[in-house]
């Protein structure tokens, strides 16, 4: 080892800062090296000199200094302490405001998800209308919020010059609206002293008392009268969008969906209590086997691991298969709704232009790339759901809607996720071809 290696470590050796092994090596070298020994001795002398010669002298200065400090302490007015407290409480207030704002945002998301999620699933016309919204204007942020605004300014057209106070106050009022409607979320918000006027005076959408319970085991959150469904559908449907389906058609498909839902529930209940019947009749067995073959010919859903029944126990095969298909369809519809909701949130201008500190910070952290990646993922999930609905559904209208959606995005060259749409569209076309071949 070079001598410089040891020289560089002398200071650390002197301070006992070297690791054990290094210390041992340097120690061994010092014992053999007169130069390093000399340098080490100088370090020790310097240390002694510093300890002795940097002490400050005992003079009158220190007593005077101490007295000066004591008089400063005793003469310090009490009001100063109060001011410090005020400052800290002001800081605390802003923290509370931030917390309140985040609670409001969470409540809005939960409220929107709760409302539109239920209705989207239960009422397929709403599903179509939102599909249309996406088809004709996927960047639309003009979709009317669930809460009606009495202010001429829409929630989506928030003026960027609004003060934070105004937005906070509007959020507070929104929160109050949610609280009054739901009754479950309760927070104590102290509105800040502000003279600015609120931007939106948001009110909850009107809802009537419930009568008919929607027959779906998973959706029992709200009891909504059938008559109210139309009203709610109107509040959710964006103004600009023209529905491509007539009202009669919507009613029919709604009835169909409800009928299939009832059947699904029945089948689910039956599947639990299925008892295998003895296959005494050979003809029955043959019929059942033929039905199984027919079902097996239909292309399986992509991305799903549902296992159709392969059991040969009579009495159980067809029921389970049908159930699994309908269950699959339900699954994909739910997935579609979830992703539509996500997309809605991403496109919501209220969030984009919100000036609340929490949202600002979150936006700073979220890079444009990550935001785009999230959107791509949502669209991928959407296309997958649409594809599976198209091949599973017996409703031609629903099928056409799904295919149309895929077609629109597959044709678009500007969107980064159009290739996904194309892929699923291709899969659908292939499955159609296969079906046509089997028919022949």
């Amino acid at each position, binding site marked *: 080892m070079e001598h410089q290696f040891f020289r560089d470590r002398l*200071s650390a050796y002197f*301070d006992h*800062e070297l690791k054990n092994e290094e210390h041992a090596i340097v120690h061994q070298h010092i014992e053999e090296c007169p130069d390093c020994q000399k340098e080490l001795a100088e*370090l020790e002398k310097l240390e002694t000199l510093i300890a002795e010669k*940097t002490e400050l002298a005992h*003079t009158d200065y220190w007593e005077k200094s101490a007295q000066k400090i*004591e008089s400063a*302490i005793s003469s310090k007015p009490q009001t100063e302490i109060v001011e410090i407290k005020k400052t800290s409480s002001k800081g605390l207030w802003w923290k509370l405001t931030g917390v309140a704002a985040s609670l409001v945002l969470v409540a809005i998301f939960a409220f929107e998800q709760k409302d539109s999620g239920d209705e989207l699933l239960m009422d397929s016309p709403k599903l179509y209308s939102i599909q249309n919204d996406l088809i004709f204007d996927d960047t639309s942020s003009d979709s009317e919020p669930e809460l009606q605004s009495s202010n001429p300014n829409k929630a989506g057209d928030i003026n960027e010059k609004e003060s934070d106070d105004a937005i906070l106050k509007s959020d507070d009022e929104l929160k109050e609206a949610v609280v009054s409607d739901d009754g479950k979320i309760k927070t104590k918000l102290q509105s800040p002293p502000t003279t600015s006027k609120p931007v939106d005076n948001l009110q909850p959408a009107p809802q009537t008392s419930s009568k008919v319970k929607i027959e779906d085991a998973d959706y029992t959150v709200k009891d909504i009268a059938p008559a109210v469904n139309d009203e709610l559908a109107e509040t959710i449907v964006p103004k600009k969008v023209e529905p491509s389906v007539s009202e009669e058609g919507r009613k029919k498909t709604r009835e169909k969906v409800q009928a299939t839902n009832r059947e699904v529930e029945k089948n689910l209940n039956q599947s639990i209590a299925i008892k295998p019947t003895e296959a005494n009749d050979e003809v029955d067995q043959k019929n059942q086997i033929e039905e199984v073959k027919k079902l097996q010919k239909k292309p399986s859903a992509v991305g799903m691991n549902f296992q159709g029944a392969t059991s040969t126990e009579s009495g159980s095969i067809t029921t389970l298969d049908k159930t699994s298909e309908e269950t699959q369809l339900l699954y994909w519809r739910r997935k579609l709704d979830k992703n539509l909701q996500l997309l809605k949130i991403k496109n919501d201008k209220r969030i984009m232009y919100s000036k609340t500190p929490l949202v600002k910070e979150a936006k700073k952290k979220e890079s444009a790339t990550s935001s785009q990646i999230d959107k791509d993922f949502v669209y991928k999930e959407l296309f997958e759901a649409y594809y599976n609905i198209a091949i599973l559904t017996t409703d031609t209208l629903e099928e056409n809607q799904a295919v149309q959606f895929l077609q629109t995005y597959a044709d678009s060259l500007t969107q980064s996720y159009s290739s996904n749409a194309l892929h699923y569209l291709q899969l659908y076309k292939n499955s159609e071809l296969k079906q046509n071949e089997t028919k022949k």
Partner: protein
Amino acid sequence: MNKKIPEDSGSSQVYITGSKSDEQKLIESAQNGNNEAFGKLIRIHQKRLFRFVYGLVNSFDMTEDIVQETFMKAFEKIDTFKTGYAFYPWLATIARNRAFNLIQREQKKESLDKMTEVGFDPQSTDLGALDSLLDDENNKRLYKAILALPVKYRTVFTLRHFEKMDYAEIASYLKIPPGTVDSRLYRARQMLMDAVKDLL
């Protein structure tokens, strides 16, 4: 057994075990509202504190202000001080923070790294008012040599020699690698040895 804290202890938190020392009694008395007891604490620690702060800021007036503010802050927060721990490290922490805040304000620096790299390099080695607080010429020569160090070396030197902080503590405090602490301290010592060779 009364565990006496060594005077040159650099540990930020030294817990005192055994019977109460005089200092502990003074602290408790000050916490009970006895201003005279706090006055005694000032007289015990102010010199050491002054030397430390001066090593950091290299300005007599600024050092005086910081020391005064440190004791005023300590008096305000005396109730929060946990009895059983050494008083000086607590004072030194307050003083360090005050010193760096003041430096940042004066120099409009944003980070401690910048402070240690640039700024408060001595314009002259004139001791000024400090001259009256030093006994003999050797003291003055040594102080002049210390003040002539570039600030990044002087800071490390002060924390090591006046506050007895180890390399890891210094590195953590100044946000520099321990290897940098070693090299800067080595350089500081080399420069001082060159300046006061005849005194060694």
